[in-house]
């Protein structure tokens, strides 16, 4: 009897351990938002089509973003966004973030809580890759992992700038990007 219960206990322990030592997790859903504020107008675009992974051991975080999945309220704005002089999404259909959580040791993926994550890596938009260093938060709750981050992207860094016309006055030089993702085991 004792033997059976010890087997059960070790099985449960093993299962718990394996559940948290799975390494790479895949996002089940995500939301990426662009927000641009100028005196002329506020512009927002939402994307729910990104795929992401987080490696709970190495701390590597990857986001792959289908650029044509950004949805604007006004169709004309969406067309401008996709066009060659803006994001050129036909030539560069995906945006990408490859980064590392540098304080991964401070995050306990087996314990419920909200943890601050320091993220360093590279962001690629429109074929240009630039280093980024941002902060985010990781929420562990009932075995699910949520990631949230808000940071600014300077459009000119990625070769996106407007000398004249409506975009030069109505699109901010720095846009705010909000990232949300939920993860589950692959």
């Amino acid at each position: 009897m004792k033997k059976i219960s010890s087997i059960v206990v070790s099985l449960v322990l093993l299962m718990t351990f394996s559940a948290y030592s799975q390494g790479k997790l895949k996002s089940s859903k995500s939301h990426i938002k662009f927000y641009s504020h100028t005196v002329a107008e506020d512009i927002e675009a939402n994307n729910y089509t990104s795929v992401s992974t987080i490696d709970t051991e190495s701390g590597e975080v990857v986001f792959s973003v289908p650029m044509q999945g950004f949805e604007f309220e006004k169709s004309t704005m969406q067309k401008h966004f996709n066009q060659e002089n803006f994001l050129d999404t036909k030539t560069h259909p995906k945006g990408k973030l490859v980064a590392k959580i540098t304080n991964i040791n401070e995050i306990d993926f087996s314990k419920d809580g909200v943890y601050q994550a320091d993220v360093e890596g590279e962001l690629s938009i429109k074929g240009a890759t630039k280093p980024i260093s941002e902060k985010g938060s990781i929420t562990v709750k009932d075995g699910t992992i949520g990631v949230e981050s808000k940071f600014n992207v300077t459009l000119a860094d990625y070769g996106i700038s407007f000398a004249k016309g409506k975009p030069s006055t109505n699109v901010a030089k720095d846009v705010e990007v909000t990232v949300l993702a939920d993860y589950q085991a692959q």
Partner: protein
Amino acid sequence: MKKKKIIKLAVGVAIIGTLIGGGSAAYMFYKPHRDVQAAKTDYSITNSEIVSEYLKDRQAADNKYLAADGDSKILEITGTVDKISENYNKQKVILLKEYGDFAGVSATFTAETNHKVSYLDIGQMVTVKGVIRSGAAFDEDLGFYENVILEKSDLVAQK
């Protein structure tokens, strides 16, 4: 007298011009999004066909299916329902993927078409119409194959 007539005419032309110009600018500004479901289907193919097309030559497939202004090709994709989920925008997402294929087609429904998904079962053969957002490819950083992404989807046939 003649001069007055010319001035009147010029003012009239200017007013009409402003109205047309302003009107078309307003039309451009408030122009509604393309209605994907009401628009003509560009290609009817299976999930396996479009995935292999992308895995064979991504560039050629992007040239064929993606539009520079984002109004990309409208596709009717036939395949087996492998997974049903919901995104952050409360839209239903179905993955059409065949056993043994490296990738599938992920189709996001809309507030108007969401209810059609509730009648679907895993393993069922369906045809879905939607607009393509991106193609399939192996991503080294993710470590797996990405699916073809379809949005504004609706169910057009089921078996």
